[in-house]
């Protein structure tokens, strides 16, 4: 064991800390970006042409913002957004500082995923709810979010996995976490075993998310 992964054994604690850092970045940004993305996905759905609160201006503005943010490569977004990070967090380096670009990197993606998931709902069901006198709020919570729950869980899992990927890229600005360890230690010092172990921990995280997500989605799927 020691021969197989010589460097890992020496920095066991560092890897454990890096794993926590990755989880911290992932979960914190997932919660904030999740709320933002879900909200914006809903805005896109309800203001779209023939939506329950159709509004061309809000729709096309939101749609364009989401498109532009989605188009910026994450590694460039990290740099571009640095002044905002500095303003909000007080520094641009470190795990907490990485959360700001992570949120901006993932919420537009998630908003689009949520929009697509909700588009799967039969418009006839929405029309029926309107015909029954449901208010827009009731339709959002009792129809869209309920009928679309299984699909929302599915796209959330998918997004979470992409987010884990982004946390490793944030290693480029010294965010800490497993990506940072794999690049700055494993790759830069030619300690390949560190890179491989970091990758394996990331894979384990991703599989765990995937399995939990799949089971939840299945649980809420009615046929």
């Amino acid at each position, binding site marked *: 064991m020691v021969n197989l992964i010589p460097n890992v054994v020496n920095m066991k604690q560092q890897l454990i800390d890096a794993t926590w850092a990755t989880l911290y970045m992932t979960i914190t940004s997932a919660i904030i970006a999740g709320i933002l993305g879900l909200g914006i996905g809903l805005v896109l759905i309800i203001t779209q042409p023939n939506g329950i609160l159709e509004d061309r201006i809000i729709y096309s503005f939101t749609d364009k913002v989401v498109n532009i943010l989605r188009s910026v490569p994450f590694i460039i977004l990290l740099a571009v957004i640095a002044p905002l990070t500095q303003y909000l967090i007080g520094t641009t380096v470190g795990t907490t500082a990485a959360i700001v670009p992570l949120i901006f990197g993932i919420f537009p993606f998630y908003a689009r995923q949520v929009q697509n998931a909700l588009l799967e709902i*039969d418009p006839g*069901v929405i*029309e029926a*709810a309107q015909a*029954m006198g*449901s208010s827009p709020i009731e339709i959002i919570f009792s129809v869209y979010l*309920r*009928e679309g*729950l299984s699909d929302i869980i599915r796209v959330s899992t998918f997004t979470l996995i992409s987010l884990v990927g982004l946390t490793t890229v944030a290693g480029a600005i010294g965010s800490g976490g497993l990506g940072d360890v794999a690049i700055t230690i494993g790759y830069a010092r030619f300690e390949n075993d560190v890179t491989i172990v970091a990758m394996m921990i990331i894979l384990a995280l991703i599989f765990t998310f995937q399995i939990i997500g799949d089971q939840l989605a299945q649980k*809420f799927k009615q046929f």
Partner: protein
Amino acid sequence: MTESIIDLQNISVVFNKEKQQLKAVNDINLRIDRGDIYGIIGYSGAGKSTLVRVINLLQRPTVGKVIVDGTNLLTLPSKKLRTVRKKIGMIFQHFNLMNSRTVFNNVEYPLLHEKISKVERQKRVQRLLELVGLNEFAGAYPEQLSGGQKQRVAIARALASQPDILISDEATSALDPKTTESILKLLRRLNHELGLTIVLITHEMNVIKSICHNVAVIEDGEIIERGSVKDIFTKPKKELTRDFVDTSTNVKKALLQIKWDTQVNSLGGNQRLVQLNFIGGSSKQSLISELARDYHVDANILYANVDQIDGTSIGYMITIFTGATEALDESVEILERNGVEVVPINLDQIKGDEEQW
């Protein structure tokens, strides 16, 4: 005079599609009386679906006034409008049930935001399920049900807020004939027992025939003919109406068959090909044998059928009369005097999609 519960005045609906204007509904006036079963028939794209959506403002008219139960809906703020909508139930061709909810919860949905206790709410759902005969399926999900059962759930759901009006948007078009009949029977019962006003759109004259009292025929966004179902069936004026009627009574099919029959195509001078429509009492008399006996006019009956429409018997007969010219004229007169409509048939004008048979 009965009071009209729905009064649509000068309704036009215009859709703007890529700089092109599409007039889906063109200046329609429509009054529907309380307790009526009113049918709106037309081919797809005629604008009937758009028209009924104007009643609960799912579709806002470009021009016109929508008055339901004395209230002008277009002036209502959205909250008030939602209260009015609860009194207008609606069922759809594709049922539009929520797949994530059980049958029970689907029917319960419209009541969730009403100010009634949970016990009362559940009792009401139970009663509604009983009404549509789906008690034992309360815990099932829509996907587990047949089309007819789904439509029953949709009907129960539409009735949950105790509406005065039920709009049926092609509700039987996705169902087989037997299921259609059972759903129509249920609607007729609801009309009878609850005094529910039903507005029903369809492209099948059989649906109109089996439950409606009044009907409007719609084509290219305009009502081209309207009246009691009995009148429309016996005296259709417009070609489209006649087409719908003939299709449903099988007269059209019979005419096409007759047209292909070469023997009929070579009628002699002392022969006449006519269609006779017997309405009400006249369908019960033995006029044809009278003609043979008293005027020596022979009738070669090619097709005959009796329909029951809104409680009245209506008979259709296609026949070749053979006899002296004077006797033929006199026969027509006698038939007409007895309330039989005599329509001479010109086979050259009978057109139809030959693939029909």
